[in-house]
Structure formats: C-alpha cells, structure tokens
C-alpha cells in the first residue's frame, strides 16, 4: 500500500513513517503542510493520505480543507484525517461529499498498531472509518439521543459500530453475536429510524449520520 503522510510535528511524522515502513507499507512522501500534501498526492497518487487537521500556516483546519480538496480532485485516493480532538463538525464536513474511502481518527489510535493498520486497509478499500469517540459524541448530543430513544441498548451498540463503518461481520465479532442476529438488529434499527436499508457499509454510515443530523 502506498501512503502519503502530512503531519507538521516532525517527531510524529518520523514515527509514523517508521511504523508504516516496519509493517511493510510504502510511505512515498511525508510532508508538513497542506500545500505540500496536495502536491505530493498529485505526484504520487497514493492509496491513502494520512492528514493531520492542524498544520501551518494557520494551525486551524488546514489539513481538513486539504483533505476535502483531495477527495474532490482525486476520488481514488483514500483519506485518513488524523486529529488530537474530536470535532463532529469536522467529521460532517469531511463526509459531506460521500463516505467511501474516508476516515477520521484520533491520533492516539496509532498506539494500537494492528487496529490502525486495519483502518488504513479499510480506507484504501473504499470503506469508512469513524473514531468511536466521534460516534459517541454524535449519538450523545441532546436531540439525537432523543431520536435514538426507541432503540434497545443492544441496538444502540450495533448502531454505534455501524456508524464507525464496521461491517456486519466485524460487528458480530466485536459484540460476540452471531452474524444472523446482527443482521436482525440492523434491520430493526433501520425500521425503527425509518431509514432505507442499504448493503454497502459506507452508505450505511452516511444514512445513519444523516439521520442523526450531523
């Protein structure tokens, strides 16, 4: 897998590069700001770009804006936005043009190397990865919590994993359920929330997030 990294903290950038190289990923470029990122993506056409939200010169949402433009200009390039904060607005902006091949993770997720690498693989394969923390915030907010009141506790667990972009198989594994009962929960959730059923994981994510008015 070919990867471009955009991260302004040199230490973390080098660390990421080392980690990915140690696990057999090909880091084709590692840059420190949004402009350089867009140039590197145009040049290398990587499978995934790993992008820090806050970069010079403004240190606000440079990376996010660069990520959105990359998705527009190079639809085949997966984007993993990497942040120290959970900001549901950022997630909403990122997902506004579709959710396939997009991820939004907290930086510390990199400490669980296997999960981090599988997130990269999923994004490269066109799936969606949302940080559990993002989903918790989305589901926890006042009016949304009300919208979810009709769901059972188990259904809410399934919904949370669904919103993170997990497939039914992965949800079954995470909750120690059978594949069949996950399917049953999913169709219950879609029925209760009045959503059109969808097989594609990333479309499922979008449907759920739209329903939650992100």
């Amino acid at each position, binding site marked *: 897998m070919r990867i471009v990294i955009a991260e302004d903290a040199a*230490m973390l950038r080098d*660390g990421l590069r080392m980690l990915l190289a140690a696990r057999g990923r090909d880091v084709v470029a590692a840059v420190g700001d949004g402009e350089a990122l867009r140039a590197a993506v145009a040049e290398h056409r990587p499978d995934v770009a790993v992008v820090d939200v*806050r970069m010079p010169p403004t240190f606000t949402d440079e990376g996010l804006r660069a990520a959105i433009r990359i998705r527009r200009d190079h639809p085949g390039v997966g984007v993993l936005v990497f942040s120290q904060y959970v900001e549901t607005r950022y997630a909403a902006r990122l997902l506004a043009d579709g959710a396939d091949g997009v991820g939004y993770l907290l930086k510390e997720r990199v*400490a669980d*190397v*296997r999960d981090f690498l599988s997130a990269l693989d999923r994004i490269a394969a066109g799936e969606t990865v949302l940080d559990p923390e993002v989903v918790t915030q989305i589901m926890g907010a006042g009016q949304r919590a009300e919208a979810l009141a009709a769901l059972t506790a188990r259904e809410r667990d399934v919904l949370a994993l669904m919103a993170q972009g997990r497939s039914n198989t992965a949800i079954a594994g995470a909750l120690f359920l059978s594949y069949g009962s996950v399917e049953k929960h999913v169709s219950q959730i879609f029925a209760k929330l009045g959503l059109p059923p969808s097989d594609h994981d990333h479309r499922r994510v979008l449907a759920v997030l739209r329903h939650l008015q992100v």
Partner: protein
Amino acid sequence: MPVTAARELAYTLILPLMAGIGLVHLVVVLLSVLTTVNLIGVPMLALSLVAARGLGTVNRRLAGALIGARTTDPAPFRPGKGLFRWVGAALVDATGWRAVAHALIRLPAAALALATAAGLWGGGLVLLVSPVWRLVPEGWPSAALLSPAGLALLFLAPRGLRLALSPERLLARTLLGPSASEARIRRLERARAFAVDDAVARLRQVERDLHDGTSARLVTLAMSLGLAREELELGHRPDHLERARALVDGAHRDAKETVAELRDLIRGILPPALDQGLETALATLAARTPIPVRLHADLPERPDASIEVVAYFCATELLANVVRHSGARHAAVDVRGGDGRLTLVVRDEGAGGAASGAGSGLRGLADRVGAVDGAMDVHSPQGGPTVITVTIPLHL
C-alpha cells in the same frame, strides 16, 4: 518667515474673533445662570453648555493646528433619550463647563498674545518703514537708527510671540482636552483591553505548546510502545526481542524528554517557586540565567500574588533581553517594596541602546505593566549601561 511663526501669527490674528465670540457666549451663560430661577434659564443654560462644547472644539482644533497644543478629543456628548435627560446631561457635562472656564480664563492670555504680536510684529514693521513714510521729520540720522531697530524687533518677534502664547497653549491643553479622570479612564480601558487580549494570547500559546509539544510526544511514545508490544507478541525469536528492546529504549528516552519539556512548559505558565514568594522565585531565576546575576530584594510586605507574577515575568523578560542583546557579562536585579509600590530595577553594563518603541519586546512589557496601573522607565544610552525600572502597585 518660518511656517511655525506664520501659523502662530495667524492664530494670534484670529484670537480677537475667538475671544470675542467666547465673551459673548460667557454673557449668555451668565444670563442663563441668573434666569435659572425662572426655569427658562435651565434649558438655555443647557443649550449654551452644549454650544460651549462646540466652541471648545473649534478652539482645540485651532490650537492644535496652529500653535502645536495637540490634545486628544474629549469623549463625545452622549445624552440619554428625551428632553429632560438631554438637559440633565448637558448641565453636568464637565467638558462643557471646562470650555466655559477656558473662555473666561483665556481672556488675559489672549490679551497678552495680542499685545505681544502688536508690539513685536506691528512695532517692528512700523519702525522699519517709518523713514519711507516720512513719519520722522528729522531725516537720515534717526532713520538710520529706526530701521535697524525695527529689524531687530522683527527678528525677535517669532520667539517673543511663541513665548507669549504659552499661557494659551497651557489653557488649551488643560481645559479643552480630556480631563484627568477621563484620561485615566481611557488608560484603564486600554489596559483592560490589553489584559484580556494578553490572557487569551497566553492561553492560546499554552494550548499550542501542549498540542504541538507534549501531546505529539506522547502519541509518538504510545506508538513506539504499541509497536514494541506487537514485536513481543510475535514470538520469542531473537530479532523480534532485539527490535522490541530498541523500541522500548526509544520510548524510555522519549518519556524522559517529555517530562523535561513539560517541566519547562509548566515553569513558563507559572513558576512553582512563586508559591514561596517573589524573592525565592527571583533567586531561582537568577540561578538559571546563563550569566551571573546579583539579586537584592527588600520586600517588607508580601505583594498580591498577581503582582508577584507580573514582577516575575518582567524580570524574566528583562534578563532574557540582557542575555540576548546586551552582551553584558553580568546583571543586577533589585526589587524593593514601600509606599504601596513595588520597584524592580534590572541593570547591566552591556551595549545599551534598548528602545521601548513599537514592535519591541519592551513595548509588550510596558503594556503588561500598564495593565496593573504601573509604569516602566527605560534608560539605555548607546554604549550602556542599561537601567530599566518597573514600578507597580504592591496591591491591586
């Protein structure tokens, strides 16, 4: 004739008009005061006080433009809604009353300026041209004396008039500009704005330091440990163990560096030594400064905690300047308390030439000192020595 002299002469020539209008206005004010018993005088007085403001503005502009008595404008007249509020506000408007006082007190000052102008410029001109106009029948000998005398008067005229205009200048500055309390309010408003901005800027700096420094380091550290754990899980082959050891070594080093960095960061936010008092904190600061610093402290009573923080950061900043810019080999810090004020003096024998102009670090420091109603004095001739004195109240 130089431009300033021309302006001053022009001002003096307008003076009779301005003083005359002022006099008429004074009469109106007086009449209004006398008729206040009839109630008609009350709105009249209010009106004439607002008019006084206008007259004051014209006088202030003239004085500023022509005789160099520039002052900032006083606060504009802001009456409440409704006639009664308007009248009430006008009657207690200090700026209006001060303009009335100006119109009265300026009369002798105007007379002085006018008489001087008439004597020096007028007299000089008359004497200069008197031979031509045959004003003096005696002929050549006296003409030969009178013309040079006229020239001499004309030569003295600009300086003389400038001197004679001093009372006018003084009156314009003191009575037409903002009053002392108004000026103080403005200074405090500026200081408050600075304090708020400064607090926000500092918070942002702390956030950025934590975000870019500590947080990034900890993420890297967690990443190394995550990798190391995987290497250990992958089995007991020697190369995995070796890699795991290298990763743990790196993480261990990172952890120690992070702690050191965090300590510096904490000290930058608020040095823990300040809990023990300003003197202890300054002693720690002096010991940490790369050049020898002689510290003398005499604080019979402990200042407010916030004052200690301001004094400490002044000392930090000033000593950093000494190290960075002065080239001095040692410095002295002297802090004293008494008469409700804390005085901090930082001295060095370095190159001097420190200026508190816009954009310099000293300017920011002066603003910070101003925010607690203090003052900073910079004495730093080229070639040194530099003595910077910060005076702030002991208690807010």
